[in-house]
C-alpha cells in the first residue's frame, strides 16, 4: 500500500502551522486502470444489454419465453451487430486494464491496500454495525476498512469471472473446458449475465459511498492524494 503522508504547513515568519495532511493512496497505474475500467465496463454493460436484447431469455428458442424487455434507450450499439462491435472491441481494453491492474498490484505489493484477508475479519462486524446499525465509527488505520476491502476484493474476483464467462460464450469450442466448468454454453451465458448484475450492484454501492465520503475521497482517485485522511 502506498502510504506516503504529507504534512501541509503554512509558514508565518518563524512559526509554522499545520493546516492538514494528505496521503498518497492511489499510484498512477491504479488510477489509470480505474478510469479505463470504468469506461470499458460502461460500454461492455451497455453493449451487452443490446446483445441480450437479441435473445432476452435463458430458456429454449422454441418456445421462447422472454425474461425481460430491456429498453433500447439504455443500450449501446443500436443493433446486434453494432453492439457486438462495441463489445468485441472494449473487451480487449477491459482485459488489458484488468491485467495491468492485477499485475501491478501483485508486483508492487500494493495489493495489501485492497485485498481482504483473514486479518480483516475482526474489522468486519464493527463496520457492519457502523454502516447499518448506527454503531460508532471504528478508528481507521489504513485507507480502506474491512468492508471496503471485502467489496474491492469481491469486485476484482467478479472481474475475473466476467472475463472467464465471456470467454466461455465467445469460444465455447476452443475453451470447451471453461464452458464445461460453467455447466455448458447455455449456463455460461447465464453466469455472464449474473456476473454483470453483481458488478452493477457493486457500482451502485460504490457510487453511493463516493458521494457519502465526499470530495477529497473522489479527488484522490484523480490525483492520488487524499486530503485529510482519517488515519
Amino acid at each position, binding site marked *: 500500500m502506498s502510504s*506516503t503522508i504529507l504534512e501541509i504547513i*503554512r509558514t508565518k515568519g518563524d512559526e509554522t502551522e499545520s493546516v492538514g495532511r494528505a496521503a498518497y493512496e492511489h499510484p498512477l497505474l491504479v488510477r489509470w486502470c480505474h478510469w479505463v475500467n470504468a469506461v470499458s465496463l460502461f460500454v461492455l454493460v451497455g453493449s451487452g444489454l443490446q446483445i441480450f436484447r437479441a435473445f432476452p431469455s435463458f430458456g429454449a428458442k*422454441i418456445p421462447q419465453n422472454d425474461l425481460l424487455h430491456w429498453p433500447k434507450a439504455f443500450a449501446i450499439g443500436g443493433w446486434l*451487430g453494432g453492439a457486438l462491435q462495441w463489445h468485441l472491441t472494449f473487451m480487449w481494453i477491459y482485459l488489458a486494464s484488468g491485467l495491468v491492474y492485477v499485475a501491478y498490484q501483485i508486483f508492487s505489493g500494493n495489493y*495489501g491496500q485492497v485485498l481482504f484477508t483473514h486479518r480483516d475479519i475482526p474489522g468486519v462486524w464493527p463496520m457492519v454495525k457502523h454502516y447499518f446499525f448506527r454503531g460508532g465509527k471504528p478508528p481507521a488505520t489504513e485507507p480502506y476498512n474491512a468492508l471496503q476491502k471485502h467489496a474491492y476484493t469481491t469486485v476484482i474476483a467478479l472481474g475475473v469471472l466476467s472475463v472467464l464467462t465471456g470467454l466461455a460464450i465467445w469460444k465455447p469450442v*476452443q475453451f470447451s473446458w471453461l464452458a464445461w466448468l460453467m455447466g455448458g454454453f447455455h449456463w455460461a451465458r447465464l453466469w455472464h449475465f449474473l456476473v454483470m448484475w453483481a458488478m452493477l450492484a457493486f457500482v451502485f454501492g460504490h457510487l453511493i459511498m463516493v458521494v457519502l465520503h465526499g470530495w477529497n475521497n473522489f479527488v484522490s482517485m484523480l490525483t492520488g492524494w487524499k486530503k485529510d485522511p482519517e488515519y
Partner: protein
Amino acid sequence: MEPEPRKSVASEDGTATPAANEAAGERADSSSLALKGREVVRSVDPAKFSQISRRELLKVAPVLGLGIFAVPKVQQALLKKGLGFSDWASARLFRRGHHAVTYADADLTPVDQFPINDYDVDDPGVNLENWTLTVSGALQKPGEYRLEQVQALPKFRQNTRHVCVEGWDVIGRFGGARFSDFLNMIGADTSASYITLACADDYYESLDMATALHPQTLLCYEMYDRPLTREHGAPLRLSVPTKIGYKQAKYLTALTVTNVLSGKVGYWEDQGYSSFYGL
C-alpha cells in the same frame, strides 16, 4: 506481526518526490502487509501541495483519449479495427485438431424445436431434381457436381451444438460428407485462403481454409437422419460446429476456392458482423 519502523526518504535532502516515497513504501510493504504505523515523510506548503496535485491530475489525463470512441467520424473505423483484432485472435485460437463436443442422442433438441432462420424466405424454391453445385476457383476439377457425388463420399453423423449469434443454442443431429473429402475430390488447392459459398436465396458466405478442412466441417445433406427439408437448406447445407450459426449456409448452389474475398465475406459479415466468428 509488528511492522518495521519506516524510514523517511525525505529527511536526507528534503526534496523527495511522491514516486520516490512510494518506492520506499513498496519496500516496507513487502516485509509487512499489515502496515499500521504511518509517518509524515515530508512537509509542504499549500501551494506546493496544489502543484503536486495538479501534476498528478495531468498524468491521468491520457485516459481521456478513450473519448475518441465518441467521435462519430472515427468511431466506425475504430470499432472495425476492434472487430478485426477479435477476428485475428479468433483465427489464432482455432485449433485444427480440436473437436467440438458431440452429444448423446438423448441431448438432442427435438427436430421441431430446431429453429429455422433465414434472411429472406424459408423455401427459396430450389429445383431438387436438377440441382447441382457449381464448383470453381483454385482447383483441378471445376464443374457441376450432383448430390449423388457428395453422397458417395464417406458419410459422417454428428450431434453438435448450433450457437446463434443472437445467443440461443440448440443441439442438432447432422449427417453428410466431410468438406475436406469433397475438397480433395475436386482437387482443391488447400493452400488457398478461403472457400466462398453461394446460396439459392442470394445468401452468401465464406469459410477460412483451416475451418473448411476441420474434420467436423460437413457438407450436410441430412438432419436427424432424414434428408434435409427445404426449410433447413435442401439439398445441401453447411454444418460447421466450430463456427457461429450464420456461417452454416443453407441451399448451397456454388462454391469457389479463392485467395481473396474481394470485399464480400458474407451476407451478415458485410453488414458488420464478425468475419471469422469461430466458436
